[in-house]
């Protein structure tokens, strides 16, 4: 990486940290520390919500996803605007009226202590592990591509986030989110315009879209109802709505963002602006991936995008076979490039005969890639054969001009830090408000609770760093962390929806219903092929149904005990 890129990268990252500390180091009480003193405007809430959701892995993976699988991933977000409306009507007024610090406080007010503890423990378990993964995933990719030491990257990134999050709490998180979203957006649009500029030397923008479409990358909407297909319109609309309701309505890392708003209006507007912006934003990121795919029709892509695994296999026993596959892949690529040039020169981008030829060659290319992956696996049985996350960063590092590489890397680090800071802040809030203040020390002073909150932020920060440092040795656990969210979100959402929409169901009923529902979700995960988005629907509906069914029995038993 050039000196200019280092200056840009360090300049942006350093300024974010400095700005976060400078603006918020005078935080005086727990209200300011955990809810930013309830002073945020709607646009700060909206940017903060978006920055929390946009982690580095989203920024790196999403274009790669479009490159490999097309743009159908955008359907995952179709339920988001609907969820934002439902939450604006239901959750926001309730949280605002009760003036809570965390979402789980509400569960005790509506039900009882055990439901509050269940909700907060499920959150702490899932989000605590996820915080480590949020640091680890981009550090791994940056270390592979740029040769940075992974441990140094994890520790540096972790310490910087801990520094400003601990000093300024929620205020620092919100203020830095504004800058981080500006950098992320600037990075995203720079990448978009650069790739269009590169492509314009070869073809027009419309031709590029036709090529992407003909090769199956602009498959944005699929209305077929197929339970085994992960991303369809229906799974996005139904499963996605439930997932987003749960994530934005019950996950403290998001709830804290709109609890910091100065009134209901600002919270609602923040959520609704997110509902307006998120789908187009994901579309643009995925479209960049589709254009990167077109770009690599004119420039030969590597056979496998992870350079470390490529180097390993080339220096191992399968070197000759791998090089032969590279040559075969190069020939196929050349053939494809010639057809595309002919197609564009003849103004025949819509002709089906060209599309057939291209798809055939693409399929052959994929077969060669599969053979290469087999060699990589034989050479190193623990190698990760999914190179999706490395596609976009390969484009950034190898084809962007000086200075812009630094900007894009700053955007990736900003995305990682924005998610991590929100996670640490929410973990700290829940630990302090729902566990420490509620169960361990009820009579402390505000100063004491402020100190404890800072200590909890540092504690969770180091926990995340340690998890990230050992994540390499815990390969299967990382996969489990990704799935863990889907396994618990439905049940948590079910508890909250029962709380919002019913008046008679008691704490005992919903607690037992939650346990049974969680067992059913776990059964679905271990013994069925149901895609993970549907777990959110299953868990939620079961909690609602079971608690409604058992409530009369449980209420009757409680009454008879009281009479006795």
């Amino acid at each position: 990486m050039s000196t200019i890129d280092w200056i840009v990268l360090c300049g942006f990252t350093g300024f974010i940290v400095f700005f976060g500390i400078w603006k918020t180091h005078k935080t005086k009480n727990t209200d300011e520390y955990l809810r930013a003193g309830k002073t945020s405007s709607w646009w700060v809430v909206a940017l903060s919500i978006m920055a929390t959701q946009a982690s580095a892995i989203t920024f790196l993976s999403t274009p790669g996803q479009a490159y490999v699988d097309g743009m159908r991933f955008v359907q995952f977000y179709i339920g988001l605007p609907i969820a934002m409306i439902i939450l604006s009507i239901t959750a926001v007024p309730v949280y605002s009226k009760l003036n809570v610090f965390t979402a789980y406080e509400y569960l005790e007010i509506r039900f009882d202590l055990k439901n509050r503890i269940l909700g907060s423990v499920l959150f702490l378990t899932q989000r605590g592990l996820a915080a480590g993964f949020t640091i680890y995933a981009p550090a791994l990719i940056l270390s592979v591509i740029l040769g940075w030491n992974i441990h140094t990257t994890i520790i540096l990134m972790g310490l910087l986030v801990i520094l400003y999050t601990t000093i300024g709490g929620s205020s620092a998180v919100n203020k830095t989110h504004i800058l981080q979203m500006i950098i992320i957006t600037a990075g995203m649009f720079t990448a978009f315009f650069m790739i269009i500029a590169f492509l314009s030397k070869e073809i027009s923008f419309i031709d590029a879209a036709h090529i992407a479409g003909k090769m199956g990358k602009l498959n944005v909407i699929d209305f077929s109802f197929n339970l085994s297909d992960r991303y369809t319109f229906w799974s996005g609309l139904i499963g996605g709505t439930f997932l987003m309701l749960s994530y934005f309505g019950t996950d403290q890392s998001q709830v804290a963002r709109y609890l910091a708003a100065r009134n209901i209006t600002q919270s609602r507007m923040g959520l609704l602006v997110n509902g307006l912006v998120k789908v187009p934003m994901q579309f643009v990121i995925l479209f960049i991936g589709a254009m990167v795919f077109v770009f690599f029709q004119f420039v030969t892509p590597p056979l496998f995008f992870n350079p470390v695994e490529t180097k390993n296999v080339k220096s191992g026993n399968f070197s000759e076979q791998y090089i032969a596959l590279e040559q075969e892949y190069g020939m196929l690529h050349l053939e494809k490039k010639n057809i595309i040039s002919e197609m564009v020169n003849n103004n025949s981008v819509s002709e089906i005969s060209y599309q057939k030829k291209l798809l055939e060659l693409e399929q052959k290319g994929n077969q060669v890639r599969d053979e290469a992956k087999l060699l990589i696996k034989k050479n190193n049985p623990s190698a990760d054969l999914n190179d999706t996350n490395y596609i976009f960063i390969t484009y950034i590092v190898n084809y962007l001009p000086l200075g812009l590489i630094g900007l894009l890397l700053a955007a990736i680090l900003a995305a990682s830090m924005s998610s991590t800071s929100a996670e640490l802040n929410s973990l700290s809030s829940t630990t302090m408000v729902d566990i420490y203040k509620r169960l361990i020390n009820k009579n402390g002073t505000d100063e004491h609770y402020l100190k404890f909150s800072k200590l909890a932020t540092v504690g969770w920060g180091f926990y995340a760093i340690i998890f990230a440092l050992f994540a390499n040795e815990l390969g299967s656990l990382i996969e489990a962390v990704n799935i863990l969210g889907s396994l618990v979100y439905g049940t948590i959402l079910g508890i909250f929806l029962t709380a919002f929409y019913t008046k008679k169901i008691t704490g005992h009923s919903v607690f037992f219903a939650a346990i049974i529902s969680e067992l059913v979700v776990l059964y679905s995960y271990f013994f069925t092929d149901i895609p993970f988005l549907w777990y959110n629907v299953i868990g939620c509906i079961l909690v609602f149904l079971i608690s409604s069914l058992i409530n009369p029995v449980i209420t009757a038993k409680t009454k008879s005990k009281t009479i006795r």
Partner: protein
Amino acid sequence: MHDKKNRTDDSPPLFGSWKIIYSLVIIELIILITLFFILTKVFS
């Protein structure tokens, strides 16, 4: 007093009613889905 009013104030800053803003979010979503569908059909 001002703070209390500030926290309970619940009128949207634009369009006068929340129902209109919710409708706008839904209309935007429907437009986007339609555009995505057209994009899929035209370019695939």
